[in-house]
């Protein structure tokens, strides 16, 4: 198996197929830890992990925090949203402040693409990107791929449809990198106004008709639709979106009998999918959440080697 030599995790774009597989394999071992009575291992004892969240996020932050705690790391929250910190604070200044506290790992989320890279260039600590703008969200993609692999036994050749607002989705971008590297067959499906320019160059197919993917996909990954998209005129109405691109029981009849319904959460029930689909037999949405902790433990474990900055 390949060795892990990276100091930072910015995006799956940078990783090789073997590195992604190593994370998934390691995550498998960590999933078991979460099933024990004592859900904690001493692997990161004495290490300090900072959650630097410039954008509100409960789910991802909690998942990372739980992962860190299960690895016995000390965690500090440096979260802030809406305050002066989220906008207009010098990234390097923040970085220097954190560096002065001698932390080992920084989990960063920011509404501006590229902030983890700028941070990484300025500090000794390991950086894990927990979402930067619409650019990347590598651990979400890893947990999505982990869930597919666990359920389907493979990723190679899997037909995956990513449905919704691709334009504004960091989850979609990171998944596209990861899935295509592992040989999945990815089709994007969404309204013309929410498919970004030149995305086909990434080796994916694009359709605007749900029927093109409904019957053939092994996985239907639904993206969260932000309500603002209607005000920004990307869509006539949320109602129409739900009608054209939303998944309900009726539409699901056309799907494969072993299809997986995935969603990075939080779901807008009645928009991307109806409640009965979200809670239905094909949905693995809660498994994704469970797997998120294991994947993040794996990533943090692999990144905590004594390596100095590249």
């Amino acid at each position, binding site marked *: 198996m390949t060795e892990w030599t990276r100091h930072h995790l910015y995006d799956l774009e940078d990783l090789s197929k073997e590195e992604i597989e190593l994370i998934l394999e390691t995550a498998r071992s960590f999933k078991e830890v979460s099933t024990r009575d004592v859900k904690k291992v001493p692997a990161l004892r004495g290490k300090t992990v900072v959650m630097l969240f410039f954008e509100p996020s409960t789910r991802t932050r909690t998942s990372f925090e739980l992962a860190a705690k299960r690895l016995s790391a000390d965690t500090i929250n440096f979260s802030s949203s809406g305050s002066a910190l989220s906008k207009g604070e010098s990234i390097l*200044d923040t970085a220097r402040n954190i560096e002065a506290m001698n932390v080992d790992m920084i989990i960063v989320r920011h509404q501006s693409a590229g902030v983890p890279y700028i941070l990484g260039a300025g500090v000794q600590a390991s950086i894990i990107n927990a979402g930067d703008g619409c650019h990347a969200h590598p651990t979400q993609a890893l947990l999505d791929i982990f869930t597919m692999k666990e359920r389907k036994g493979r990723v190679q050749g899997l037909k995956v449809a990513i449905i919704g607002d691709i334009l504004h989705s960091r989850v979609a971008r990171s998944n596209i990198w990861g899935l295509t590297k592992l040989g999945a067959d990815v089709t994007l499906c969404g309204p013309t106004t929410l498919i970004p320019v030149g*995305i086909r160059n990434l080796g994916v197919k694009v359709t605007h008709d749900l029927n093109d993917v409904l019957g053939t996909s092994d996985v239907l990954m639904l993206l969260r639709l932000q309500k603002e998209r209607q005000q920004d005129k990307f869509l006539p109405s949320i109602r129409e979106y739900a009608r054209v691109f939303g998944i309900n029981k009726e539409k699901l009849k056309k799907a494969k009998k072993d299809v997986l319904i995935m969603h990075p959460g939080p779901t807008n029930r009645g928009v991307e999918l109806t409640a009965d689909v979200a809670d239905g037999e094909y949905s693995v949405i809660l498994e994704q959440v469970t797997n998120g902790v294991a994947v993040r433990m794996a990533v943090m474990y692999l990144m905590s080697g004594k390596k100095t900055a590249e």
Partner: protein
Amino acid sequence: MAVLIKNALIVNADKMDPNLQDILIDKGLIVRVGPGLPDGQARVMDVKGKHVFPGLIDLHVHLRQPGREDKETIETGSRAAVKGGFTTIVCMPNTKPVIDNAMIVEAVVKEARRVGLLNIIPAGAMTRGQNGEELTDMFELKEAGCLALTDDGRSVANSQTLRLALDYARMAGLLFMEHCQDLSLSSGGVMNESYTSTLLGMKGDPVVAETVIVARDIEIVHYLKTRIHLQHMSAARSVELVRWAKSQGIQVTAEATPHHFTLTDEAVKSFHPNTKVNPPLRTAVDVEAVRQGLKDGTIDCIASDHAPHTVEDKEVGFDHAPFGVTGLETALALGITELVSRGVLTLNQLVDRMSAAPARIIGLERKGAVREGYDADLTVVDIDEEWLVKAEGFASKAVNSPFIGRTLKGKVKTTLYGGKIVYQDD
């Protein structure tokens, strides 16, 4: 006291004399040009065969004073300008407060004279507070020292306002310079809309946001039979529209910046805030079109769009960082490195695009050439000297250059303004 520059290789837009010439300067004017002039009473300055250009002219500079003296002042901007070989610059009105009345114009002119390193011409706002609504008092602005008007930083969004403003500006004898960007189409874009913006997940500012305004302005100018100057053309399609307009005899002039003829949006992949400019860096096709536009004269001149920002302002994440790069000190070297060395422009053409053409556009009759009777604004250049762009090396307060770390060719050795040495490289 008279000055005699000896052994100069004079480069004018129209010709380059292969023989070394002497230039006699007196009372701020070039009084004689010729080989082997007698020393007489003049102080002699031997440039030993270096190239002497007419002082460079930049139609697009942000000096930030008044209001953001932490980014740049008239004094530091002046030092940066003369270090870059410029002897005349037009400063943009988007200061705080906006240069939209005589009082502020006079204050800028007064401070520029006190610094006294070069000729600084303020551009007045086209509309009060650059709000796009009420016209400024143009005759007042002209009397105070403005030669041009612009709402740079944004377009005049309302077409009727533009029509009336252009009509009125013609009467006042002022040039209107347009920043071409339809803000509704740009819709908060932070980089060029392209495959690269898709990869980076950044909000794209599409080419069409620029070209719709270029096309609209061309049509309005054509209708009014007046003239316009289009700022920082960045897209192949814009160049094409300007080329067509010129072929129709429509009075359009245009400028391009060194970053737009050098860098593509691939540079944004570094996430470095110094690659965030407005208009955004475009694709290789656009860069090539801008170069060709400069070559065939479709784009009349090079302007730096010098936009100094502090590191603190820039290092806040790409989305929140302000647009713009510092440019005065690298403009000439980029012209030599990227255009002359690559055979896009001859040295004469570069002098045209950086001195003669801007002088013509803004209406400076005794500038833009090394000629008897012209102002003794001169730039002595070693066109072969290579130098490394370093953050520590800027005379400007700002170091927000995307070219830091690059080795460029062509270095300003001496700058003379009105016969006085205002910059000397050591």
